[in-house]
């Protein structure tokens, strides 16, 4: 039975019934045909069920994407009549040095948006799950997940205060006698990108933790018990059981966070706007600048398409790799 058949099993019964009856009245040779058309009909009904989701998805996701791809072939300022330029916009993207910098920054952000949060999320999930049921775990879980609930714009403003010259971070450094290390973090050519990246880590870690927590709950406690019988400590339990069995959660966490890293915009727009110089410029910022400030809608669309393709490939690769047997 196909998925569609299972989904639509009972609904088309009367129609199918009548066909079968008609088929029964004919010769035996004609039997297969009505059966096939019945299946097709069921499939049509299945599509009807999909329509409520399919229609908005097509209207609000597929069509705008196609429209963007179409616009990427034009030189258009967003106001006057556009002129067709073919693939010129894509050529401009490949040769733009600013864009190469943006690609590097997006790559660096994967470290902060994916690698770091996944490590932190994993460790905190392991700790929280071992303490499950004890007092305070719910509170810890809530607090760690909280950044995920705050709008990113608010997060950005919050961290601007933290990173400011007389912000909490510098105050803390001065309080412990490290006043010499203080900096205007978001204005530093060296530190702006890591500073922005760490905000991302702060936001995403909670999500990763919750993902991994739900994963650990799925793992049979008997496996842990068996390991404990064999004399495994918490660390061994973590590396030998928790990590390997969380493979599906890894795939989900990695996909979500890599998408967040590559398509990041709001955090950077609020905190540094791409500065100082171009040291935190990412593709999202460039798309926004080009389309809304620079009146280069065609180039911006081309860049958006390239970014979409790159992200799709990244997610495909992640899923393919995680599907393979350990």
């Amino acid at each position, binding site marked *: 039975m196909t998925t569609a058949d299972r989904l639509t099993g009972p609904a088309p019964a009367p129609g199918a019934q009548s066909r079968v009856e008609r088929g029964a009245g004919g010769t035996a040779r004609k039997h297969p045909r009505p059966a096939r058309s019945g299946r097709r009909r069921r499939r049509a009904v299945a599509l009807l069920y999909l329509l409520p989701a399919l229609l908005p998805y097509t209207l609000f996701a*597929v069509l705008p994407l196609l429209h963007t791809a179409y616009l990427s072939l034009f030189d258009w300022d967003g106001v*006057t*009549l*556009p002129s067709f330029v073919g693939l010129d916009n894509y050529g401009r993207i490949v040769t733009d040095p600013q864009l190469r910098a943006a690609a590097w920054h997006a790559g660096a952000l994967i470290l902060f948006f994916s690698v770091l949060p996944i490590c932190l999320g994993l460790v905190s999930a392991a700790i929280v799950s071992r303490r499950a049921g004890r007092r305070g775990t719910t509170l810890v879980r809530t607090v760690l997940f909280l950044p995920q609930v705050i709008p990113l714009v608010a997060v950005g403003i919050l961290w601007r205060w933290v990173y400011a010259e007389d912000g909490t971070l510098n105050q803390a450094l001065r309080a412990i006698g490290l006043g010499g290390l203080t900096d205007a*973090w978001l*204005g530093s050519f060296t530190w702006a990108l890591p500073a922005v990246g760490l905000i991302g880590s702060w936001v995403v870690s909670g999500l990763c933790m919750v993902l991994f927590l739900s994963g650990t709950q799925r793992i049979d406690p008997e496996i842990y018990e068996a390991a404990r019988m064999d004399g495994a400590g918490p660390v061994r339990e973590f590396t030998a059981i928790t990590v390997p069995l969380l493979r599906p959660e890894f795939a989900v966490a990695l996909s979500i966070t890599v998408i967040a890293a590559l398509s990041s915009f709001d955090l950077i727009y609020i905190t540094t706007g791409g500065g*100082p110089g171009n040291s935190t410029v990412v593709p999202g910022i460039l798309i926004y*600048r080009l389309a809304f400030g620079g009146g280069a809608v065609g180039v911006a669309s081309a860049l958006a398409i390239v970014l979409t393709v790159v992200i799709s490939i990244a997610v495909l690769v992640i899923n393919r790799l995680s599907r393979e047997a350990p």
Partner: protein
Amino acid sequence: MSPSPSSLSRRTFLTATGAVGAAALTACSDLTPGASSSEKSSSGPVSTAIPADEKITLVVADADDTTMTPGLIAAFREKHPNITVKRNYTGWDDYLKSINTTMSADSAPDIAQFTSGMQNLVPGRLLLKVGEYGKAYGWAEKFPGLDQITLTPDGKTVGTGDLYGVGAGLSFEGVYYNKAKAQKLGLTVPPATLDELEALFAKAKAAGETALVAGNLDGGLNHAFNVLLSAYLTPKDREAWAYGHQSATIVLPEAEKAAETLKRWVDKGYVTPKVNGVSDNDATAAFAKGEGVFRISGNWAAAAVAEGLGEGAGYFNMPPVTSGGKVRTTGAGVYYCVSSKSKNAAAVAAFLDFTAGAEAAAITAKAGFMAPDAGAMPSQSGLLGDVQQGWQTVVKDAGLQPFIQNSSSPTMGDTLTTQLQLLAGGKATAGKFLAGLQTDFENYHK
């Protein structure tokens, strides 16, 4: 699971998706909704009469965060009870990025605050040429600085072509200072030349003070750079570049002097330390709280500075390069332009004209702007009075010049911010900095 039905259903699914897509694509015939050139954009024969018995609704879109625009609207409505004026306020950054789309819509506001980037609306014929109304009302005599909203048909050059609006409230930049600290440090103000100003900076720095309070996280050093350019560059070169004239350049020895001066101020430690990490607003706030000695900013900051420093707040115009030279500074203002889609052009023109009157001058001045009718501005005391006096000198010397990032190219705001951060961060020399600006200019005017 048999493979054939599954692949068939997937194909059907894709076909269905494609069909829906194709249908919707053909449904919207206008995939790139550029303005057609048939739209009317000239006002034609006009008069200054406003229909008094007709109910008219005007919509104003603006990013004016002072009391000026709402004040003018309220006063205008009181004078013309049959005209309802609705206001759509948007924050500055969002306004800059969205106004072109707003003006392209069929429901475009009648009046919009003119900002950089809106030049693109001119070739799209989305702005109304108001030259005829200007003649009928005599705006050339009423409004200073109309050249900043006069554009060529391709929208790329400012200062020549057709008039698209008026400047209701003007702004300009100068130097604020902390009177108490200046006195304590024995600084003689106002300085007669730029060199003297720099000597004051050095003295303040030697006394352990931040000489020039600034914030460059969002490119706030452009205030200092713009006024330095005003002082060094000839008005002709300045305007040619700022207004985006063909083959204009900023790679000039005088401009390099201005950029080097700014860089020296940063390098010698006169400017707020780690200036790239401080926002422009935070710099004003810090200065108003008593930090530092000098601050280069516009008259829009006067209210905040006066509130913070009270009687201890002082102001002088940016000094010229040589003693006794003409005062030149940078300024802009709140300019209103008109949508070519407006159905009530006569009422709109009446509103624009209203902003030049004596009644409007009081509202404009109260909001911290310089009114077009300088004589009608109520005289003020304290810091606001000093600023007002400074404005009179600027007008007398015809020293108001446009910001270089407003109309030179649509992307110049972002580019100038980036380049100033590189300059202040020690990542670019004055020459490289100017070359960076020129590249942006040439990308647009090629």
